[in-house]
């Protein structure tokens, strides 16, 4: 009896195989770009670049940032991709440390050295700022109207009880830009106060999303009311017709998204052309496209910006924080890991604490009950204090543990012991906060 299904498919497969082997290997010039940026942005650059250099094909490989780093690391030496183009500066740092990036000699001279206190181009010359972005608050106007919520203006607003369960944020370990926001708040408010604010905001969050794009996506569809997002997500959503708004809070930092040349790039010459193009006035203007909405690094092109487009060089967006990138880098993994262990992975417990505290606060409002007020204050301290003190966070020896990138038994043991301690302390603190808040609420009767 003939087996009908299988032979057909295997013929198909064989035919396809044969085709693939005989297909001529294209001799066309190309430049291979590894990026995490959305299709709208990469598509616009591909089209414009190929129009300007008709002989060169721009091959865009879209991968999440960590996958992009791994791809460049593992690519065979005779076939390295050419350009790495993502936001997160830490990804470039890692590649530079592993000698996977080549220095770029001639950055565009017109680009200022710094935006605020943040260097636009890598001081060591391994990567260049290609566009600027600031963090801010985005919200869905319909969601806010339906839930009768006021529009927020500042980070501190998001810590208010009225927003409980309506906010979303990503995690610093998942998104370099979220890390910069958290670090901005920590530097703007100080370690203890900054974490307190961060924990209160996180307590109000409906979700700590795994991807940074999960936040604007959720706000667009109305799943979350308010999100902490990078500006172009907010601006592009609005210009695409979504009922959303975006503001820069006063405590914000403007930071660059970067582009770099891969060491040993197969098409290094074309790669340089591409990088130069993205930094040319022509290439920079592409960023004004409403679906892209990023801020150029070339101050001169803002003359051609659409009306109402923010210009970070005029001081219209006032970053109050003088961002210290060395401080940020020195405690990078501590901040990320602390956030995940005490917020991301214990989010359920944290929101329970926030809920109990909010309920007790509401009950005590307008009543004078010193004992209950004291209990409530204690509950707040338990729930919203970081488990690592400001002094410890400055401790060189402590930070060195995280800067040691070697993998050995002793280091793993110490780091996991720390994580265990942070996670358990946080959970115990949140439980205690619930208990104290409930007792405070009971006293209010």
């Amino acid at each position, binding site marked *: 009896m003939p087996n009908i299904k299988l032979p057909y498919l295997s013929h198909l497969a064989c035919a*396809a195989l044969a085709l693939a082997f005989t297909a001529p290997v294209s001799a066309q010039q190309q430049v291979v770009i590894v990026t995490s940026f959305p*299709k709208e942005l990469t598509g616009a650059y591909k089209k414009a670049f190929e129009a300007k250099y008709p002989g060169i094909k721009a091959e865009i*490989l879209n991968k999440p940032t960590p996958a992009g780093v791994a791809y460049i690391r593992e690519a065979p030496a005779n076939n390295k991709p050419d350009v790495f183009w993502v936001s997160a500066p830490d990804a470039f740092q890692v590649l530079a440390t592993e000698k996977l990036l080549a220095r770029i000699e001639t950055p565009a001279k017109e680009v200022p050295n710094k935006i605020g206190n943040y260097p636009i181009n890598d001081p060591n010359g391994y990567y260049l700022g290609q566009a600027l972005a600031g963090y801010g608050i985005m919200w869905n106007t319909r969601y806010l109207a339906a839930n009768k919520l006021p529009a927020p203006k500042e980070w501190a607003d998001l810590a208010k009880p009225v927003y409980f369960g309506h906010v979303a944020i990503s995690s610093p370990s998942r998104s370099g830009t979220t890390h910069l926001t958290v670090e901005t708040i920590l530097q703007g408010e100080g370690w203890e106060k900054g974490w307190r604010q961060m924990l209160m905001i996180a307590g109000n969050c409906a979700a700590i999303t795994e991807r940074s794009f999960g936040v604007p996506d959720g706000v667009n569809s109305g799943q979350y009311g308010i999100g902490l997002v990078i500006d172009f*997500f907010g601006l592009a959503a609005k210009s695409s017709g979504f009922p959303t708004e975006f503001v820069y809070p006063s405590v914000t930092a403007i930071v660059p998204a970067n582009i770099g040349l891969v060491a040993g790039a197969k098409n290094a010459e074309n790669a340089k052309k591409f990088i130069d193009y993205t930094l040319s006035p022509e290439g920079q203007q592409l960023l004004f496209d409403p679906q892209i909405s990023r801020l150029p690094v070339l101050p001169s092109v803002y003359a051609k910006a659409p009306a109402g487009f923010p210009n970070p060089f005029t001081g219209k967006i006032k970053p109050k924080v003088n961002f210290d990138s060395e401080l940020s880098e020195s405690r990078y993994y501590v901040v990320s890991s602390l956030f995940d262990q005490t917020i991301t992975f214990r989010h359920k417990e944290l929101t329970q604490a926030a809920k109990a505290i909010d309920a007790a606060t509401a009950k005590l409002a307008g009543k004078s009950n010193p004992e209950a007020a004291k209990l409530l204050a204690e509950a707040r301290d338990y729930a919203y204090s970081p488990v690592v003190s400001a002094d410890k966070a400055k401790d060189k020896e402590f930070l060195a543990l995280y800067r040691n990138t070697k993998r050995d038994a002793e280091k793993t043991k110490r780091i996991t012991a720390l994580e*265990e301690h942070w996670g358990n302390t946080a959970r115990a603190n949140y439980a205690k906060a619930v208990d104290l808040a409930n007792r405070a609420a009971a006293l209010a009767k």
Partner: protein
Amino acid sequence: MTPRFTFPQAALALAIALFLLVFLLVPVATVLYVAFTNSDGSLTLAHLRSFFQLTLMREALYNSLYVGGMSVLASSVLALPLAYFTARFRFRGALLIQTLGVLPLIMPPFVGAAAMQLLFGRSGSLNLILGDWFGLNLPIMEGLNAVIFVEALHYFPFILLNLTVALNNIDSAMEESAQNLGASGLRLFRRIVFPLALPGYMAGAALVFLKVFDDVATPLVLNVTDILAAQAYYRITSIGIDDPIGYVASVIMVVASMAALAGSTWVMRGKDYATLQRGGSALATRRLGPWQGLFAYGWIALVLLLVLSPHIGLVLLSFSRLWSFTVIPESYTLANYAAVFRDSPFMLWNSLVYCGIAAVLDVAIGTAIAYLMQRTRLPGRRLLDLVASGAVAVPGIVLGIGYLRTFRGFNLPFTELPFVSFWLIIAFAFTVRRLPYALRSCVAALQQVHISMEEAAENLGASNRRTIFRIVVPLMAGGMLAGFVTSFLTAAVEISATLMLVSATSDAPASYGIYLYMQSIVGRGPGAALGVITVLLVGLGTYASHRIMRARSLRFETLQALK
């Protein structure tokens, strides 16, 4: 008794072992050895100890087992009645169930969960309506229960497919004998039908468990991080830290999956599920009485509505211009489809080719392993099964990095092109990742074929080869088809290894395209459109293969009747 094994069998086993070694064991080992070594290369178990000292990891392991087990339970509740109706009753819904029932598998998990959010999420259609009418908000899409809900809807077809095949393979003679001996109703089902179908059910249940246990996309879309796959993913994809704990978590997942598989084989051990008579009719099908019909159609409608809800959400999204905080989209457009047909039709073709290659290889290897395991006493045959099945638990990103690392020194023969940039490597990744599915189905199918059939053929002078191709393969065909379909469907939505291995957009499969669209604000519409087209294409393929199978079995029956 026959000799332990023959030379061709040993050669076949060696060839499969070689394939698994090159495309599974070595690549995975190049990545996972990190779990057991220090930077200087010395071996250590310290990372493993550290892993188990983390409360979070122990909780995550427990949660993963819980979610896996509960998903099997929930999937069974969905699948059992559907499989029973189709096998037992003569009615028009059967083909509908067979085809619509597998559609959930074609939905890329991250898209499916996102579409479910639009319908069942906090501001999804359902909750918006409930909020308007009753001031209610049901937390359907929150926490571990949401993962179980989505996973069960997504993976119950594994049970449905395998169980249906198994039920169809039961000879009506068994049932008739039981009836003659006075058994009927529930007793008949419990003592005869269900035990005989058990291999198929176990194969499906094992797959659901393994798949849910290792799935990372669904929990992450639902923002659930306290399960093992998510923890492993968080750690492996952290930039810049050489963190062995993530790899330890992967090793634990591989080990736990293999233990679950070994467990399911152990449950089946020492039992003989093969029945002798074949070629007669399958289970007697009855007409539905009016009440039975009402109940059957009611249940089918309910289940289909539920399992197709992600597709409904996806279709709505694909036609929507704007959908934000409303029950259904407020304005519609065809532009999303236009964008897809302009930009990415080649990706659909790529998907068909890669998945076709993967599914054919999977069924071939799966059938071979099943045969070696059950019909020979070749040393190491169980090891082949375990290794091939272990692939299910290897995270896609680990396999992807492993391929890049293992093959980076190799060029394609006669060219300068590195092997890792050749599209076939994506098809091989699919083959390895989906092999466990096809393998389970093939093993279950062969378990139902009694060895006497082959002995009879050999007594009549058929050669070993002829027996296999004229007797064994045709009798296993249903299971092989089920394996082909599951492997093909699920390969069509593979994303994690794909993201690592795509080295040119022109080689990318459709799942990559969907991912790409879904990463941008204005891309959700086109992403959904590409998703709908993929689902339609692959669904059509499934329908066609069922039609072919049905036509063939009809002809087979007619031949029998004529004799």
